[in-house]
């Protein structure tokens, strides 16, 4: 039996890129950092706050997200939204994710035969 440590590292590797995909999908509906964190967690994307917040800013710098301050509520919050560029990149990422899934399925069937 492999150790939990080994398993955890492999799962981490597998999940690393999916947080970007999940964020770009979720932010088609504008949201602020902590709310996004909770939405992602509710959908099975457990991500640490200290990873997600810097990631959002990086995606914003890359032009994949746009942001806007909302001062209407009790405290001012920065809302992020997936930009047009972000949507295009997301499209490519989703295609690739599907391609990987397809390849894995084919591989499994091929080995099974």
């Amino acid at each position, binding site marked *: 039996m492999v150790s939990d440590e080994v398993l955890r590292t492999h799962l981490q590797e597998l999940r690393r890129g999916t947080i970007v995909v999940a964020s770009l999908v979720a932010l088609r509906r504008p949201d602020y950092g902590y709310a996004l964190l909770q939405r992602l967690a509710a959908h099975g994307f457990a991500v*640490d706050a200290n990873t997600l917040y810097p990631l959002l800013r990086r995606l914003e710098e890359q032009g994949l997200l746009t942001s806007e301050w909302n001062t209407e509520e009790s*405290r001012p919050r*920065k809302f992020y939204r997936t930009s047009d560029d972000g949507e295009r990149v997301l499209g490519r990422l989703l295609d690739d994710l599907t391609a990987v899934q397809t390849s894995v399925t084919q591989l499994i069937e091929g080995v099974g035969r």
Partner: protein
Amino acid sequence: MSSLTDRYVAATLRTVPAPRRAELAEELRASIADMIDDRTAGGQDHGSAEREVLTEMGNPEQLAARYSDRTLQLIGPRYYLLWWRVLRTLLTWIPAIVGVVTGVVKATVGGEPGAAIGAGIASALQTAVQIAFWVTLSFAVLERTRAPLGLPEWTVDQLPEETHERQISQPDSVASVVFLLGTVGVLVGQHFQHWAGGDGSRLPVLDPALWSFWLPALIAVLLATVGLEVAKYRSGRWTWPLVAVNALLNLAFAAPVVWLLLTDRLLNPDLIERFAWLREGGADDVARIAVVVTVVVAGWDVIDSAVKAVRAGRR
């Protein structure tokens, strides 16, 4: 007193580039407040919720590094191998050479042979520390500036010739070179040594008359042997031409030494004059022992090199 959150935000912003600070501060503060609210809504008191949230956010310096996309390593995978190679190459030769040169200078020009070894080791260590520091610093700067070095990509042509292990190891070669240069240093140094002490007269161990030809010749042979060591290291193993040169050099060193010893011309006559036990036959004993040692060492070295050449040829 400022709150934990204030202190946390301040600590994070300290190492974030200035233009983004104000906005980042506000966002980070709001995010932390949201997380705390979420916990206090569940009945937790504000103080412990704040502690918990900030603990979850982790070391502010690490968070700041993530915000500014900074590396948290001195030298990353991009430069590590190059750094290690440069460091290894420089540390192999330079400290040893500097140490020997310093020792020789101390013994000859400085006239303090007793302090030569200590001075040599100290300067070799100092040089090694300096090299390690400056090379590492340069690469750490490169890592941070992400300066492209434009180095050629690795190609298969860079693969080492031999697939087996080297017969001639780097430490061995370095030790040999240091020993040879050290011997040259001793030959030169002994001429200036206050060996007899007391009256302060300079009394070399070897006959100063030998400087007219034999000592320079022996030193030349030793230096040629340094060249052989380098050639041997580059080849990685003993080859027959190397064995032949090695035999020749051994002969060129041992034969004159033996001849000088047997004809009582090696030791300084003044030295023999000064010590009773040397006068009364001691010098002959010293000569006989030295002859045997010289012949055995030289013979062994030649046989050893031949055996290794045979072994290298079999592979």
